[in-house]
């Protein structure tokens, strides 16, 4: 330590955890983050295409809501993402990192496709009910394994569920060998394109009404389940502390398994909604990363269903828009991953400014 004293002005960032923040302030911060992200994206897009960014953004809007069909696609994709997010909600509330939605969707989708292929001639209503039940069961099987081992051996659930995603993908490629149509194409093609067996029917003039109904029903039921039921309370306590749960007389193992089955079951149904309600085919990309995107959706919305709807809608909007501009400017479809990636990073980062207060403190002191 030297002895000469001089005045040094310190500029330190001072962080304090906020007790609470007004909801509108939080949303203003998120809005600013989105705007910043859009500006950065504009730079990236201009850098790649040399186009006027305003044209690019009008292209995005056009791609997402530019025609009736595009609006419906955006809605369809939004509700599916919301459904998966709602499925993840109970598991995440319990601090169970279900990173396996991808696999659970695939298994649910496979069950739906199997029924469409082998039982396509059943009466439509019966078939669709069967599809929903079977896909939920398939998801449940995929969720049971990690839940059981987590409950009884404390096996790391995030890696377990992650690995099951790839096992599920291999099962799909295995099934494609038997289901491929036309033979040799290595893909399943549109199932039952003639009689539309197992397709969600047109209701009120739209192909996707049933998708929306299913998602709304599941979302409302799950919101009530989490907030007002004894099961929901148990999940909240287990998520906070296993010790407290034991103290309260909650059977932790049972709650872990039960909650994960619900979570995986909903993800399985999401698989059916995708296969029977939208694509009418199955492939390894049926889930298409939505299982992961939904994790981000659920986390950013703080497990609030309304928030999840907003975040899903926004992300799908950007994705659909990015797909449009990619084809418009001759980029490949992965451009949308980069654009949504940038937006997601900004949204994740801005949560910090919602949770913490940052002040630049200037202080003068004698430094020795």
């Amino acid at each position: 330590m030297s002895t000469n004293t001089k005045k040094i002005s310190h500029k330190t960032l001072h962080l304090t955890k906020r007790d609470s923040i007004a909801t509108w302030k939080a949303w203003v911060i998120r809005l600013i983050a989105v705007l910043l992200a859009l500006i950065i994206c504009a730079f990236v897009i201009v850098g790649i295409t040399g186009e006027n960014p305003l044209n690019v953004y009008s292209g995005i809007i056009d791609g997402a809501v530019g025609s009736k069909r595009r609006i419906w696609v955006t809605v369809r994709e939004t509700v599916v993402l919301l459904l998966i997010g709602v499925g993840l909600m109970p598991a995440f509330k319990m601090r169970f990192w279900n990173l396996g939605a991808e696999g659970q969707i695939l298994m649910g989708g496979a069950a739906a496709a199997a029924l469409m292929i082998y039982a396509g001639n059943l009466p439509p209503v019966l078939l669709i009910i069967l599809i929903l039940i079977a896909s939920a069961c398939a998801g449940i099987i995929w969720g049971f394994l990690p839940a059981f081992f987590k409950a009884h051996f404390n096996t790391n659930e995030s890696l377990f569920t992650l690995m099951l995603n790839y096992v599920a993908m291999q099962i799909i490629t295995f099934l494609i060998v038997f289901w491929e149509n036309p033979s040799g194409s290595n893909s399943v093609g549109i199932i039952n394109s003639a009689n539309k067996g197992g397709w969600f029917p047109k209701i009120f003039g739209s192909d996707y009404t049933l998708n929306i109904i299913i998602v709304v029903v599941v979302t409302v039921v799950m919101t009530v389940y989490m907030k007002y039921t004894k099961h929901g309370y148990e999940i909240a306590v287990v998520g906070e502390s296993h010790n407290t749960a034991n103290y309260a007389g909650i059977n932790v193992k049972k709650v872990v398994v039960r909650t994960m089955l619900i979570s995986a079951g909903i993800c399985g149904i999401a698989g059916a909604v995708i296969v029977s309600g939208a694509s009418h085919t199955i492939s390894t990309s049926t889930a298409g990363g939505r299982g992961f995107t939904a994790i981000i959706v659920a986390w950013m919305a703080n497990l609030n269903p309304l928030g999840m709807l907003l975040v899903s809608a926004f992300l799908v909007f950007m994705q659909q828009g990015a797909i449009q501009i990619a084809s418009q400017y001759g980029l490949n479809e992965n451009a949308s991953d980069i654009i949504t990636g940038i937006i997601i990073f900004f949204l994740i980062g801005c949560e910090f400014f919602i949770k913490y207060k940052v002040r630049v403190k200037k202080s003068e002191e004698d430094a020795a």
Partner: protein
Amino acid sequence: MENYAIELKGVTKRFGSVVANNQVDLALKKGEILSILGENGSGKTTLMNMLSGIYYPDEGQILINGKEVSINCPKDAFDLGIGMIHQHFKLVDILTAAQNIILGLDGGMKLDMKKINQEIDALVSKYGFDLTPAEKIYNMSVSQKQIVEIVKVLYRGADILIFDEPTAVLTPQETERLFTVLKKMKLLGKSIIIITHKLNEVLEISDRVAVLRKGKCEGVVETKDATVESLTELMVGEKVELNIQRSDPKKPEKRIEMRGVTVRNSEGLSILKDISFVAKSGEILGIAGISGNGQKELLEAIAGIQKVDSGEILYYPPNSTTVEKLSEKTVREIQNLKISLSFVPEDRLGMGLVGSMDLADNMMIRSYRSGDSRFFTDRKTPRKLAKKIVDKLEVATPDINTPVRKLSGGNVQKILVGREIALNPDVLMVAYPVRGLDITSSYTIYNLLNEQKEKGVAVMCVGEDLDVLLQLCDRILVLCEGKISCIVNAKLTSKEEIGMYMTGARKAGV
């Protein structure tokens, strides 16, 4: 000026709107032992954290050996010869003692463990410690870990040692040994600060005492001029009645009986060995022992949380001749039998309450299954209960929708104890009920326990402050390494005797 190791002048530290330290002036002479006395929340630890570089003061000056310094990080503190021994040991469990001791130090890229072990051995023999450098921390007892902490700061060349609540986890015998070490270090020229709230120890070990209250320094006195009463008055700011009213048990009846209970942990080691005792209605049974000798498991076994490997736990309901066997039942089965067992666990926010939930939701933890609907929760009753407890126990909270994590330690404990007593228990078990509480809150809790005792409840209380246990309890059960080393009448024993039983230095028939 010359003979001061540390001088603090007008030091202030704020956390948001809370002023943790307010214009504190304090000085430590070279080669003395200074006690800093104050209740929990009086700002002792914050003050010391500014000396060890964990926090940076908002205002004021710090002088070390007469020179003004700026301590920006823990490393600056080492360089100035300041070493802090924290209350919660700052040790990495999976590393060895030696690795912990050299943690964060400069010196060649390569680790020469052989040379380091030799250096530590030299230091250890100089001060007469008992320490194996290559031993892993997770294999050590609490007092061994404390030695590692002391050697750690000495190895770094500390001349000023700050101890934060060093005796909180020690037995009376271990405390004695620590004090011997402190005196030896003082003789070898070290300056020492001890942060504590135990008055007897202050009087025993220190040369001078500084008293903090609500972040302010209330005065510094020579120990030889101080008494327990005068220090308490300085510390609390008013005269406090330090006596606990103890009435004789009325019509004690058997409530809980353990017969040869053995409990093993997941690795198959016995945590409780062949425990047999009786807890009676209308009396307070104290449970003493060094932390981690089976107290937690004992209470949890009765509550149905801890699985019992052999033996039985019996419950004798009041006004009835039936006997219930608790040892085979889960928490839920016990609740279904309408047996009213209340339990205030040691880990308040990790077991008894959920920190992120509000007061009302926390009221439901043990009773969420009740209510008319099978599926939906009843939230009205817990809200009423929360309001009642807040009013009756004067809990300082903005409202009942506040997460309990945001309340102070004393208020958290009031909510927990209040909830458990509201169950109208026949048996009340409490673990470390006043840990971290200020004196006034502590006496509120003692009074609540006595009230329950007089109502005919069988109270079991695990405690660490032997002075309090001796005043509060009727009988004291001492645990050592999972066995009962004695059960004594609290009126006929002494602190020293219990200390001997705690370490297993004495064993007696039950």
